[in-house]
């Protein structure tokens, strides 16, 4: 015989007034309590009668038991995962990750200071000193020939017109390990060229419209 508290819990479950945790506990008890299951059936029917639902035909007690037996032999209907929806999410996430990684790689490897990606950035010199122009030399070309030294804002200086930057120390060149460690992708490299003679102002003027 089941206790009145379980029966009262069942009544509350029928009305949707039982906590989920209590409902789970009660359902476990119902597995082994046929009388409790029958009361559930009867109370449902009582509700139908009180609501005047004449469409509810009193089902024979055997029907639910027959279904119960048939269901026991059937596999458990696990909730299906929406694989298509999951794939969509995964594809979206992968695309975003690739874009983010590409952007990060680009920012890390591109030369600082504006300029073309492949060209060597130039250092704008002060007026009257050296004029710096784009050399057209590619960083990749230099990488194989010279151990390029990074230029920091503290160590850099503006060279007077016609003066070249000192050549690297030959010993350091010999002792230098393979080129790669000497190359700092995110650091600025410069080539300083002699200033070109200025063009007369009238030659630069735009044609009259």
């Amino acid at each position, binding site marked *: 015989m089941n206790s009145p508290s379980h029966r009262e819990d069942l009544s509350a479950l029928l009305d949707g007034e*039982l906590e989920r945790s209590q409902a789970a506990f009660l359902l476990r008890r119902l597995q082994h309590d046929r009388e409790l299951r029958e009361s559930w059936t*009867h109370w449902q029917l009582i509700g139908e009668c009180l609501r005047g639902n004449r469409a509810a035909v009193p089902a*024979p007690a055997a029907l639910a038991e027959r*279904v119960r037996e048939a269901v026991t032999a059937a596999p458990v209907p696990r909730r299906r995962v929406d694989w298509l929806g999951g794939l969509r999410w995964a594809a979206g996430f992968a695309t975003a990750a690739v874009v983010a990684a590409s952007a990060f790689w680009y920012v890390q490897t591109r030369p600082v200071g504006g300029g073309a990606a492949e060209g060597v950035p130039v250092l704008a010199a002060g007026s009257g000193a050296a004029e710096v122009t784009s050399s057209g030399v590619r960083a990749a070309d230099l990488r194989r020939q010279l151990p390029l030294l990074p230029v920091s804002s503290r160590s850099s200086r503006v060279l007077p017109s016609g003066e070249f930057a000192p050549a690297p120390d030959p010993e350091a060149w010999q002792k230098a390990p393979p080129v790669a460690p000497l190359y700092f992708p995110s650091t600025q490299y410069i080539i300083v060229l002699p200033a070109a003679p200025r063009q007369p102002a009238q030659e630069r003027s735009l044609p009259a419209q």
Partner: protein
Amino acid sequence: MSDRDVDQLLVERVQAGDQTAFDLLVRKYQHRILAVIGRFIRDPAEAQDVAQEVFLRAYRALGNFRGDSAFYTWVYKIAVNTAKNHLVAQSRRPPGDDVAIEDAVHFTADSQLKDRATPENELLRQEIERHVTAAVDDLPEELRMAITLREVDGLSYEEIAEVMGCPIGTVRSRIFRAREAIERRIRPLLSEN
């Protein structure tokens, strides 16, 4: 939790492998589903076989049920399709006067059911209804009011407590005692069934 929430809770339990939860769903809706099938199939034994098939199909397909519609509406569709297929398989023509799915939950259809229900079922239904009514009339006032507000008016425990001016725990207890008292009156009838 609403009635639909209770169903959803039970469905989730079934999907987690709890067959007892499905048993409760069957016991809750078997009366209505049997009535739906009875509109297509008059023979009671045959209708019960089809009802069993309906619930078994519902159980197998429950993995796909996502709760977009009410559980009963979903089972109702399965019941109508299964009953029609049954008649077609038997080379019998299904009737064409379906009830719309949207109306299924509120389906009372007195006129149609009176015509189609078997005399035995109709007699039993009337007998049970009479006993339930008599049992409710015999209840103490507070129990009668509590069960009526719940089952007929569909109020929540909180609303009933407000109407009756008592704690929710008392409402819960009164409704339970009312159900127990009514069940005692109809149990002999249902046992014979």
